[in-house]
């Protein structure tokens, strides 16, 4: 062989070797502890549905299987039920999560039911979902859960969603229930009838595993983040805008492990949460039937979720709300209140929450409608310090001072707006009346009657959302 030929042969071999790299990359690195990836695509792969690859992963003896999903639309409801799926990863192969789509319209789950979830993971640890777009399911986008929260076995741990976009799933986008630890990151959720991101029923833990939500974007949802009885959650570096409420940790009897608490909300942009989804022209409908009915002696009426609020701490214990930019929410920037109307055991108690060092209202250019802060005066040890441009909602009857309702941190001894009910779910009667009047507006789209609306100056790439059709002439006098 002459030298030129040798060079050509060497070049050809090198090219073949380089061509082989992507294939081996798809197949995994081949180490003893590495499994061969299961590749799913619409044509030409061994697996044409994600479920078939998941079923195969459940039969392999090795853990930590990786399922790689090539671009395409997959109409199915995927289930990975049980510890045999510990360590499973399902990932799109494109950097763009919108390329590999899990589509809920006409999708069925493995036993033939209409698919309620894009992916359901039960009783499995360390399951990661990456780089997918999960949309239009009857209930949720991706749902991790423990099927028996009674047994304290914590079978759902360290669930991770990274670059998973969810849209127009009927209830929730990314949903953890009864899980410990884990993370949602780099993901976008919109169009949900409840919330884009949900951490609920977190078990009590002696050494808590933190659940971290970071670099998220939630918009045009009834709620951006919701977490019934959520605990040990940090929500940071995210944008929550154009929702009914941006962030709502809450306590309800309907789920185990009351109350919600011990969370952190920091370094987020929480703005323009004025989505009046109650209006007929909204393309998102709430799936909530309300939070109960007001007793007749209090005027009756269905209690609806509030709208126009940045953060609502509902029956929360021990949240730290710090260093957020909160602006342009037409009702309140941050609200904190208990549930005095029927929570069994009065677990929904607002206490030990700190609201510190937040930038409110963009230096007065995009204020939070009525007030930056609103509390019902219930519970104890809630404090406010170092927040810029703060306006605090007062009583209308001078029954409590602002210093009593919004004490500084740490709370000075003896500060309590409602001495007769110190530390209980019973707040200041006047403040509670303000809240109940608001959330029982009939029809509920008339909550907008009370908003303090204004135009918003430009903010980054975002555009405010206004649902057309609100008729101010229908507002009560």
């Amino acid at each position, binding site marked *: 062989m002459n030298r030129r030929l040798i060079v050509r042969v060497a070049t050809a071999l090198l090219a073949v070797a380089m061509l082989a790299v992507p294939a081996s990359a798809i197949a995994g690195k081949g180490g003893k502890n590495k499994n061969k990836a299961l590749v799913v695509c619409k044509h030409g792969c061994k697996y044409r549905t994600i479920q078939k690859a998941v079923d195969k992963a459940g039969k392999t003896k090795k853990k930590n299987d990786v399922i790689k999903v090539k671009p395409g639309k997959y109409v199915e409801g995927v289930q990975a*039920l049980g510890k045999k799926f510990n360590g499973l990863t399902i990932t799109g192969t494109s950097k763009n999560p919108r390329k590999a789509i899990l589509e809920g319209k006409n999708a069925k*789950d493995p*036993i*033939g*039911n*209409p698919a*309620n*979830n894009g992916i*359901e993971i*039960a009783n499995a640890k360390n399951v990661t979902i990456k780089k997918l777009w999960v949309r239009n399911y*009857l*209930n*949720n986008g991706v*749902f991790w*859960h423990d*099927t*028996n*929260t*009674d047994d304290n076995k914590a079978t759902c741990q360290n669930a991770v969603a990274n670059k998973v976009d969810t849209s127009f799933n*009927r*209830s929730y986008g990314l949903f953890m*229930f009864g899980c410990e630890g884990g993370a949602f990151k780099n993901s976008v959720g919109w169009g949900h*009838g*409840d919330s884009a991101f949900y951490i609920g029923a977190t078990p009590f833990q002696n050494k808590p595993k933190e659940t971290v939500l970071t670099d998220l974007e939630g918009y045009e949802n009834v709620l951006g983040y919701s977490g019934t009885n959520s605990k040990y959650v940090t929500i940071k570096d995210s944008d929550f805008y154009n929702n009914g409420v941006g962030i709502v940790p809450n306590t309800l*009897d*309907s*789920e*185990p492990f009351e109350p919600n608490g011990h969370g952190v909300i920091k370094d987020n942009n929480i703005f323009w949460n004025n989505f009046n989804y109650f209006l007929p022209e909204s393309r998102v409908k709430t*799936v*909530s*039937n309300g939070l109960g009915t007001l007793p007749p002696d209090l005027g009756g009426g269905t209690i609806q979720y509030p709208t126009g609020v940045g953060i609502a701490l509902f029956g929360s214990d021990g949240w730290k709300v710090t260093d957020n930019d909160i602006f342009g929410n037409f009702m309140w920037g941050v609200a904190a209140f208990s549930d005095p109307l029927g929570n069994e055991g009065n677990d929904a108690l607002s206490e030990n929450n700190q609201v510190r060092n937040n930038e409110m209202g963009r230096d007065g250019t995009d204020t939070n409608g009525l007030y930056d802060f609103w509390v019902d005066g219930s519970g104890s040890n809630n404090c406010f310090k170092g927040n810029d441009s703060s306006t605090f909602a007062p009583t209308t009857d001078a029954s409590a001072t602002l210093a009593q309702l919004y004490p500084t941190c740490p709370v000075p001894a003896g500060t309590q707006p409602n001495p007769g009910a110190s530390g209980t779910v019973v707040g200041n009667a006047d403040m509670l009346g303000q809240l109940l009047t608001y959330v029982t507006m009939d029809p509920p789209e008339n909550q907008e009657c009370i908003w303090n609306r204004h135009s918003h100056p430009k903010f980054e790439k975002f555009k405010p959302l206004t649902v057309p059709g609100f008729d101010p002439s229908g507002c009560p006098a």
Partner: protein
Amino acid sequence: MRRPLTIAAALLAAAGLALAPAMGLAAKTKSVGVHDDYYAPTKVKVKKNAKVKFKWDKINLNPHNVTLKKGPKGVKKSKPCTHGKITKCNKSGTGAIGIKFTPTFNKPGTYNFICTIHPTTMKMKVVVKK
């Protein structure tokens, strides 16, 4: 020659339909609603070989299931399924709406069911008589 087969099948089906009540096979199907976050009713009595149809409320927000917590001796817990004998199909799928679950109670005894997502608030029992 498909027509004679069709006629034969129709005749057999008609005969089957006619015989079933006489043989006591067509026990009445009862319904149980699956709602946010309760079953209704919470106790059902049926005869052996009756079906119970669990109906998910169309306005549910939360996911629910129907899972056997405790049954008669010898009944083992199953994987999720939609229909079949209760001895082999005693756990529904999990979802808010549209889930199908209609087991046939072929073995007498008391069956206690829960929703594993809401185990304290969603409980019900089916009592099967001989």
